[in-house]
């Protein structure tokens, strides 16, 4: 990749790699924006995320798949059907074209598998040393059925908290591929698009479903604290109910990390009124991405908005937000 502005080389590159990888009728329009049909009914949701993962390729995925799945998930968390994605690439001069192709290929595959096209995009190349390989910012829009209004402020005391599966897989997969940590494990990132699972959940729980959120950066701990803060409630969760794969637990022991704070990319937390909890859990367990779904606790009245946890050991603790990034520890 060479640093350039408006040249034919760059235009050809964008046309070649991305048009091939994302092939869809909207991108084919070849304009600086895509013209798109709007399905009837409902409200629109819009989201964006920047993806800056290091390394770019990790067990179970790469930044490209992540950038598709992550943004689809933020749409899905509103109970919405994801419709369209945009993708903005910031590429460091000298970045291997073969890697870009692999990333674009993964995005294309993720886009086809999820049925959500990347309808418009942009590429900028910056001088060497002014980025880190490639950054991707995706944005997405989706359609949420009229009447469904999931939101992080809707948890109420008594509501049930359900987690869709085991935590920490993504973060541990990433760390295992960082040179300076140098450990090996068979753990793969859980990177996945959750809109299918979400559709089944919305069907099953209907108005009982209050909110969903994907516990990405900062892990389950950050998400529960965010939700507690936003809804003005506390949460009380059971450590023993939270699925953690043995390798994830082991890697966390080795590095002095807590799986509660480790990132996930294919999991969600749902808060549901008690009356809908059983139906929701059953529907989730019937879906391939929710087979390990579990009730992990419930919301409680708490003006301190604490997330409290009964440990597997039987004691109690607060699950706080992390102050800054969780770093590997030696003491």
């Amino acid at each position, binding site marked *: 990749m060479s640093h350039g502005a408006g040249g034919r080389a760059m235009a050809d590159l964008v046309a070649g790699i991305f048009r091939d990888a994302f092939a869809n009728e909207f991108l084919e329009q070849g304009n600086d924006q895509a013209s798109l049909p709007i399905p009837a009914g409902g409200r629109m949701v819009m989201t964006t995320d920047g993806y800056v993962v290091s390394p770019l390729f990790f067990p179970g995925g790469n930044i490209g798949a992540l950038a598709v799945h992550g943004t689809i998930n933020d749409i899905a968390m509103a109970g919405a059907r994801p419709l369209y994605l945009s993708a903005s690439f910031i590429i460091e001069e000298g970045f291997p074209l073969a890697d870009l192709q692999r990333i674009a290929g993964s995005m294309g595959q993720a886009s086809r598998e999820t049925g959500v096209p990347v309808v418009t995009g942009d590429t900028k190349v910056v001088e060497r040393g002014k980025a880190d390989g490639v950054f991707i910012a995706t944005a997405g829009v989706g359609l949420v059925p009229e009447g469904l209004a999931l939101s992080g402020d809707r948890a109420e005391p008594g509501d049930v908290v359900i987690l869709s599966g085991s935590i920490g897989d993504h973060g541990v997969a990433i760390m*295992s591929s960082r040179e300076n940590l*140098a*450990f*090996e*494990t*068979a*753990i793969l990132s859980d990177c996945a698009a959750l809109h299918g699972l979400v559709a089944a959940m919305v069907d099953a729980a209907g108005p009982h479903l209050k909110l969903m959120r994907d516990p990405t950066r900062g892990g389950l701990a950050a998400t529960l604290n965010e939700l507690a803060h936003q809804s003005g409630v506390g949460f009380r969760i059971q450590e023993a109910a939270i699925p953690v794969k*043995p*390798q994830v*637990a*082991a*890697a966390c*022991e*080795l590095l*002095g990390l807590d799986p509660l704070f480790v990132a996930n990319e294919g999991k969600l937390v749902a808060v549901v009124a008690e009356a809908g909890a059983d139906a929701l859990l059953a529907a989730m367990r019937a879906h391939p991405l929710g087979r390990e779904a579990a009730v992990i606790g419930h919301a409680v009245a708490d003006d301190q908005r604490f997330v409290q946890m009964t440990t597997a050991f039987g004691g109690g603790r607060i699950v706080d937000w992390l102050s800054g990034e969780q770093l590997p*520890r*030696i*003491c």
Partner: protein
Amino acid sequence: MCLAIPALITALLPDQMARISLDGVSKTISVALVEDLAPGDYVIVHVGHALSKIDAAEAARTLELLAEAGLLAGAAEAPA
């Protein structure tokens, strides 16, 4: 504290290094500080170094003591 964890030696490597395994996680560490190690031993690992070999017999004895303490409690709670 000093974060350290028991791990299984799976292979001894040249230069006083060894492979360890911890529930499917493996890593290369230094074993320069501990003598007489063999694959199958468990060691306490700290900042990439083995500090101490785990004594399997003593570990078993500790577990017995723990169980015993629990039993005693049962005895204590039960009407004497």
